[in-house]
Structure formats: C-alpha cells, structure tokens
C-alpha cells in the first residue's frame, strides 16, 4: 500500500488541513503497511514542498511546478493527480473547498467511487463518515482498486514535524485550456483560522445587525484569542461574511471551546460544531435547541451577558 496525500497549500507553506490528512494516511499505513507520500502541485511552491518533507511519517514528497498549476484550478490539479494516481492504493484529500472540488473529478477519471468526509479509518478499505447532517454515522467499504477519500480534518490530529522526506520533482501536466482564473477576493484575517482555532466565538440572528455583531463579539474573541464564526441565519442576514459560516454547508469545526451567542441551534448548525470539546450557549430563549448540546448554558440577554463576560476574563 502506498498512500498519496494531495496537499493544500498557499505555495509558501502547507495549509493546516493537510496536516490532519497526513495523520489519516498514517492511520491507514499503520493498519495495512506501506508508505505515505505527499503531492505538492503549484508554482514556486518550494516552501510548501519543504514543509511537507518535514512532516513526521512522510516518506516522499512529489513536487510538480508549473505556471498552469499556480491558481489550483480543479481541472489542472485533477490531471496532475491522475499523472501519478496509478502508483497508489489511496488518494487522500482534505475535505475543504479545494479538496472537495478536485477529489470527485479524480475518482470519476479513475472510474472509482469516492468516500467523502471520512472521520475515522476502520481498515484500509473501510471508513466512517457522517450522513444526514451528522445525524447518522455510516461505515462504508470500498472494493475499488484505488480508494479516493476526502478527510474531515476535525476527525484527525495534525501530524507532527521532525521528519526528513526526499522531495522528488515530477513533470507538470499541460494546461487543460478548459478554465481560467479571473480573480479572487480573499478576506483578510488577523485572528486564528476558523477550522484550526482552539476557541471559537460564534454569533447568530440574535445579534440583530452587522454593527452589533462586530461590536459585541469582537471584544470577546479578542479577549479569548478566538476565531469568529456565524450561523447561516447571521450570514444570510449580512451580519458576517459567508466564509465564517459554521454548519453542514459551511465549515465543520471542533475547537476546545465553542461559544454560541444568539444561535438557536438548528440541526444544520449543530452538524458543524457538535464535536467541540466544550460548548457554551448564551441565549435568552430557554427553549432554544442549542441548550440540548451545550455543556454550559446561560439564559440571558447576550447584549448584557457578553460584555460582562469580557470584563470578567
């Protein structure tokens, strides 16, 4: 068995999600034997390749470098993975927007099924994954010769550093010519990334406006060194940018502490945060479903409780 992890990176370094996928790959290698390799496809991505080579448990890093790989277009990255896919028994991607974009394309080109959002490795061919917004956990087995899997990053710890794998350059595939990159609007963050944060402060419709959202929750996030999240209701109402959305269709998070302020707790939201270690809910509605999953519930007006909480930290 040789397992390939397709790295998500910003060219300079790996993105955090890749580290969790490497741990899932090591889990498979431990059960079935074999090596873990990492593919870094990009342009001027030496930093990311070096970063991958330093991960514990990684035996080899494949590095494809070409301008047509710079924008990480799904068509080109999938073709790059296909160029080496036959050498592997497993192709593992992070279950992020990038991994979810590319993995099914690769699976279809290989004519194999894909396993989405694996949360646990049971055997080399058997994985657990949540379905129905996390309300059921399915155990699925693949009989395909190559297993294409996206890994839910909150299901696995991040791989440690201290390894020294070899970096092997490989030939880059030609541009597909099917799609082109026009531009990007990336939100600048001066706080921890949502999916990697140890503490998350999250707001819902109860905040009432974008101004109140920022005014009430930012001091709490600052005091805790936390990332800011939001429910879909808050995002749809324009209180918070959409990449802050926690839930079935947004980000799946599992921090040490999740503070839900003015969030009722719809099942779609719970699907995104119920694996958090400690959940705190601040809501004035005693019947809000969020209290059924909260370790500590405070039934109070958040506009009074949150500033008081900030003062007492």
């Amino acid at each position: 068995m040789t397992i390939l992890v397709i790295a998500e990176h910003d060219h300079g370094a790996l993105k955090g999600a890749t580290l969790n996928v490497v741990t899932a790959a090591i889990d498979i290698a431990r059960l079935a034997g074999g090596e873990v390799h990492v593919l870094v496809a990009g342009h001027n991505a030496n930093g990311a390749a070096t970063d991958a080579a330093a991960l514990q448990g990684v035996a080899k890093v494949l590095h494809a470098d070409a301008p047509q790989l710079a924008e990480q277009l799904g068509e080109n990255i999938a073709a790059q993975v296909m160029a080496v896919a036959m050498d592997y028994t497993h192709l593992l991607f992070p279950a992020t927007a990038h991994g979810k974009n590319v993995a099914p394309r690769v699976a279809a080109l290989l004519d194999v099924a894909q396993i989405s959002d694996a949360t646990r490795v049971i055997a080399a061919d058997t994985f657990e994954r949540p379905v129905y917004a996390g309300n059921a956990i399915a155990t699925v087995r693949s009989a395909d010769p190559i297993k294409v899997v996206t890994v839910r990053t909150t299901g696995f710890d991040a791989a440690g550093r201290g390894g020294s794998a070899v970096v092997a350059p490989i030939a880059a595939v030609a541009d597909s010519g099917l799609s082109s990159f026009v531009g990007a609007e990336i939100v600048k963050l001066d706080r921890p990334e949502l999916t990697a944060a140890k503490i998350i402060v999250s707001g819902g419709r109860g905040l009432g406006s974008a101004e109140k959202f920022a005014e009430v929750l930012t001091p709490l996030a600052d005091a805790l060194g936390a990332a800011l999240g939001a429910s879909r209701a808050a995002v749809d109402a324009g209180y918070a940018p959409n990449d802050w959305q926690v839930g079935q269709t947004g980000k799946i998070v599992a921090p040490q502490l999740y503070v839900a302020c003015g969030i009722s707790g719809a099942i779609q939201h719970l699907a995104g945060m119920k694996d958090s270690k400690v959940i705190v809910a601040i809501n004035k509605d005693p019947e809000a479903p969020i209290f059924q999953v909260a370790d500590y519930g405070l039934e109070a007006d958040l506009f009074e409780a949150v500033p008081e909480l900030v003062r007492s930290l």
Partner: protein
Amino acid sequence: MKILVAVKRVVDYNVKVRVKADGTGVDTANVKMSMNPFDEIAVEEAVRLREKGAAGEVVAVSCGVTQCQETLRTAMAIGADRGILVETGEELQPLAVAKLLKALVEQEKPDLVILGKQAIDDDCNQTGQMLAALLGRPQGTFASKVEVEEGRVRVTREVDGGLETVSLATPAIVTTDLRLNEPRYVTLPNIMKAKKKPLVVVKPGELGVDVAPRLQTLSVREPSGRKAGIKVPDVASLVDKLKNEVKVI
C-alpha cells in the same frame, strides 16, 4: 443556450432523521420528502437565466424511484420546461448518477448543466465534479454568481477564505452554493401548469449505464450523543466553570 438541471428527491431538511434499530440505514418510511435545497437553487438559477434571455430551454432531470416525478413537477412549477426521469429502484451512488447524467447530456447537448453542490442526505458533494470529469468539461463548483458570456460562463465560487472567480469554456458544469439565489415560491397556477408539461421516463439500461453501487454500507449508527449539560445562573459562575472545571480558558 440550453440548460440541464439535475434534481434529487431527499428527506425534507426539517425532518429529524432516525437511524433504524438494525443499523442498516436511516428510516425513510412515511417521512416527508422534498427537493434537495441546493437543487431548488439550481432550478431557480436556470429559470432566471432564461428570464434574462441568456438561456432558451431548461430541462430538469432526476434519477431514482417513480416518486421522483413529484420532484420533477416541482422543478417544472418553478419554471423548467420539461422533465426526464431515469427510473430505477436501485440504490444510486454519485458515480452512477454522474454516468446517467453524462448519457443524457450526450443526448440533449446542453451548454450548461447546473446541479446542487451536495445532497443533504448522503452529504457527498461529488456528482457535479464527477459529471464534469466524465464529460471532460470544466467545472464551476460552489457557485455564488453565474454570468453567461459569449461561449463562456463566468462563475464566482465560494472558497475557504473568500470568493474566487473563474471563466469556463462551455459546455460547462456548475454546482450551486446557498447564496447563489433565493428560490421563488411555487404558486398554485404554476403547479397546475406544471402538470401539463412533458415528462419522459427512461431506464438506466436504455442509456447503457450500469448503476450497481460501488461502495458497500456496512452499518449506520447514531452519533455518540453529548452528555447533558447544565445551566449556569450568571456570567460569574460561567467563567468559574470554564476556568476551574474544564480549564479551557
């Protein structure tokens, strides 16, 4: 331009599903079913493109049991011109659906195929990408904006960290994210009109597609529940618990 939209019949998103006691799956008997919410957004987008004059015909497709005809009628009540049902009682996995859609795309020759980004039952998020791969066409996944240009489609995508815009050569495959649009309510007159629109039923065999499942579901279980928490009377005791009991701050 002609648009093909794929719609799936799923357990309604408001239903709290129950895992069957024997662990073989989720209980779907006598449960309210409706169109997958992302697919409603897909149909709405196709109909809006036609209303803007950017598209000619909108064809809705569904794969599955006979009752999927209701889902197709809903799509036609939103505004799709006609429906195609690929009828089968077999369990359909994304790769099989992608192959069925590929066969229909080759027949219908649309310039754009719009699907939801994921179905809320299997939560796979695969079919659109797989269809694009099988057809050798570009994909615009997680779309929050779609603009039709001469021979191309410009798609703004929701990615981690923000938005990204790509330009795709047509025919192209687009999958919808939540913020693409707000689907209209279907009105009674439109429901009545939808009943008269053409709906064709075909079988996977007629399309030459083998739909046998590739993944075997060994078991389905309830997620491990959380221990019941407590309510704290005030902020001071909340801070005390977080600092001294669970030590997370």
